[in-house]
């Protein structure tokens, strides 16, 4: 078992709380500040919510991230749902918040440093979120 990698299965609303608490705990163990832990936990919460809303089930995996001299946390959000048909539009701010039914992706990107979406119609969605330590 890799102590720096945690996967939470998202099936029901209580899993949202579990996922964000796991992510926050890992962020804390990696030395992120309390304020950064909250940003990361909030992004995970939104991501878990999207899984339930759009795909039904999925997984959220948090792990330690190292790229060159940079250290951080990697959150991989995976579902087998219908996918996002127009990723570019989903990243537009007004679109996402309209009626509270949007994906909230621009907000999640602001909470993290990087957010990438891999989505093909019918093949589910993978969100890759990174936040670097200062």
């Amino acid at each position, binding site marked *: 078992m890799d102590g720096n990698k945690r996967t939470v299965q998202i099936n029901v*609303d209580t899993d949202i709380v579990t996922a964000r608490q796991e992510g926050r705990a890992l962020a804390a163990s990696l030395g992120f500040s309390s304020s950064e832990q*909250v940003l990361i936990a909030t992004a995970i919460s939104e991501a878990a919510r999207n899984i339930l809303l759009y795909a039904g089930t999925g997984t959220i995996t948090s792990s330690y991230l190292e790229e060159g001299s940079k250290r951080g946390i990697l959150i991989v959000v995976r579902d087998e749902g219908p996918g996002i048909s127009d990723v570019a539009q989903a990243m537009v701010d007004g679109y996402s918040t309209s009626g509270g039914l949007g994906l909230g992706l621009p*907000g*999640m990107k602001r*909470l993290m440093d990087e957010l990438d979406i891999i989505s093909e119609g019918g093949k589910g969605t993978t969100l890759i979120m990174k936040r670097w330590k200062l």
Partner: protein
Amino acid sequence: MQVPILKQRNYLIATIQSALTDADLLQLRDELTARVGRFRSLGVVIDVTVLDVMDSFAVRTLRATVHILKLRGAETVIVGIQPEVAFAMVQLGVTLDREATALDLEEGLVYLDRQVEGSGRHGR
């Protein structure tokens, strides 16, 4: 995890004790809606001090709760949003700009007293 709701004078005070699931938040909304009628409450304080995450669902549900309670004749104030939670809410882009907020329970009660006095009703 059920949220305890205390009745004090003509006010209700709901103090969240731990992280809430979506179902818990909806239950809080329904409980407050019922009790405002049962106790003829004029004001409600929702204390979110212990919440470390206020995501879009939590904010939307709180907003709806405040609106429903207003329609039932009670003013509501949300108190105790922590600084890092406030920062995360701003980054996420969720707002509580039409809802009353206060630093803590004490300031929340001061706010309610002012609102109730202003409306000519009595909080005590």
